[in-house]
């Protein structure tokens, strides 16, 4: 910072929608993937801040603001897998109506597929992939079936 002052980068405020803040730096585009946003289905404006400084923690982070959309719990749980410190603020008429931290549970079911192609959960069996969370920073998940560590979480989200 030039003169030692730390100033948060401002993104345009939104009237209604969701602000996903404190996304692990570099994960904004993966969060966009979780939100299912691509160039063909955007009906509202989205602002993305990548590699911006957090005024609170003075660490680098990413931020996403998406208008006219609130997130379901499954989407929030998926975000927790790649950005365990993210906060979700629901904005209604420019005010924060609700704010909470994403929560990475100890046991995760049906949110990601196992990265091991020989895992039985990838072989057409009627079973949801399950993982135990063995570390949160960074998130590290172990498959409850094949016992392997899940590689590239963002590439394996369901």
């Amino acid at each position: 910072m030039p003169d030692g002052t730390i100033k948060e980068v401002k993104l345009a405020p939104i009237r209604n929608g969701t602000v996903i803040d404190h996304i692990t730096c570099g994960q904004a585009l993966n969060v966009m993937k979780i939100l299912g946003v691509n160039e063909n289905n955007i009906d509202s404006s989205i602002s993305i801040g990548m590699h911006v400084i957090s005024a609170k923690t003075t660490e680098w982070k990413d931020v996403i603001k998406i208008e006219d959309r609130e997130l379901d719990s499954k989407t929030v749980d998926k975000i927790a897998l790649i950005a365990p410190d993210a906060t979700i603020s629901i904005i209604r008429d420019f005010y924060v109506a609700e704010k909470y931290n994403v929560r990475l549970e100890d046991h995760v079911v049906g949110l990601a597929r196992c990265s091991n192609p020989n895992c039985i959960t990838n072989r057409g069996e009627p079973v949801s992939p399950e993982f135990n969370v063995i570390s949160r920073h960074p998130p590290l998940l172990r498959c409850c079936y094949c016992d392997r560590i899940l590689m590239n979480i963002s590439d394996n989200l369901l």
Partner: protein
Amino acid sequence: MDLYDKDVVSIRDLTKDQIESILDLSEKMVPYAMGEKTKRALDGKILGNLFFEPSTRTKLSFESAAYRLGCDVIDVSEMSMTSISKGETLADTIRMVDAYCDLIVLRHPYEGAARLAANCSINPVINAGDGAGSHPTQTLLDLFTMKEAKGTLEGLNIVLVGDLKYGRTVHSLADALTMFGAKLTLVAPESLQMPEDTIAHLEEKGCHPTKTADLNDVIDQADVLYVTRIQRERFPDPTEYNKVAGTYRIDNAILREAKSDLIVMHPLPRVDEIAQEVDSTPHARYFRQAFNGVPVRMALLCEILGGDIDA
């Protein structure tokens, strides 16, 4: 008998006390496994032996263990003989077989298959190897073979040599040996060394294995030399394979540097990792190890199905 009606999918499912209890019972089972004594401790029980992958020792020793205890066996040896070839899921196959027997033994090519089977089955499931995953009964018979030869597992200096990356037996074995305070040395070329996350897991449990690529550096300190096969298909270049495989070939020349009471173990089948000249030395323990599959599996069947040879 706290293993009664329990699944054994991974060696991590067992506590140290449970493992010790199985090893103690295995020792009592040896004369029964050899046919010197007989006891139909599991009379009236039925074992479902499902082997969806080739196996000689594991399948036959489970069958032998069951028959020695008076337990009947129904089995499937080929996927082509089952409804799986018609598109039935493993989950449905397990639910069906579960209705026909008291315990399922499963060997399957895909990792995690035994955990899935255990979740689908009402009766207990024993994992007899799932792909490159767990093979807990192999680990138990390895531990028993070491204990039988050395009297204890505590403080043994154990050298694991060969393919430590892909070999499923060594991961489970290393895991279990940490419970008993064994000192581990991992001998493998860098490309076949034990995976970092497996080593990290061992370190979490207080075991700090030594890694080396040169067997000659450590052979003189070893109490147990556990050899595994280096598979040719792991090497794109055959010259590289020949170089690596030759480095870890155990013969009488290399054993000259070893302690006189060193035992050499191998899960078998061997190809040329151990020279045949070693078979007739007191070091060779691998055929006894293969036999030990029977008493150990007898002990496990009795613990899970509630058989008692003293009754």
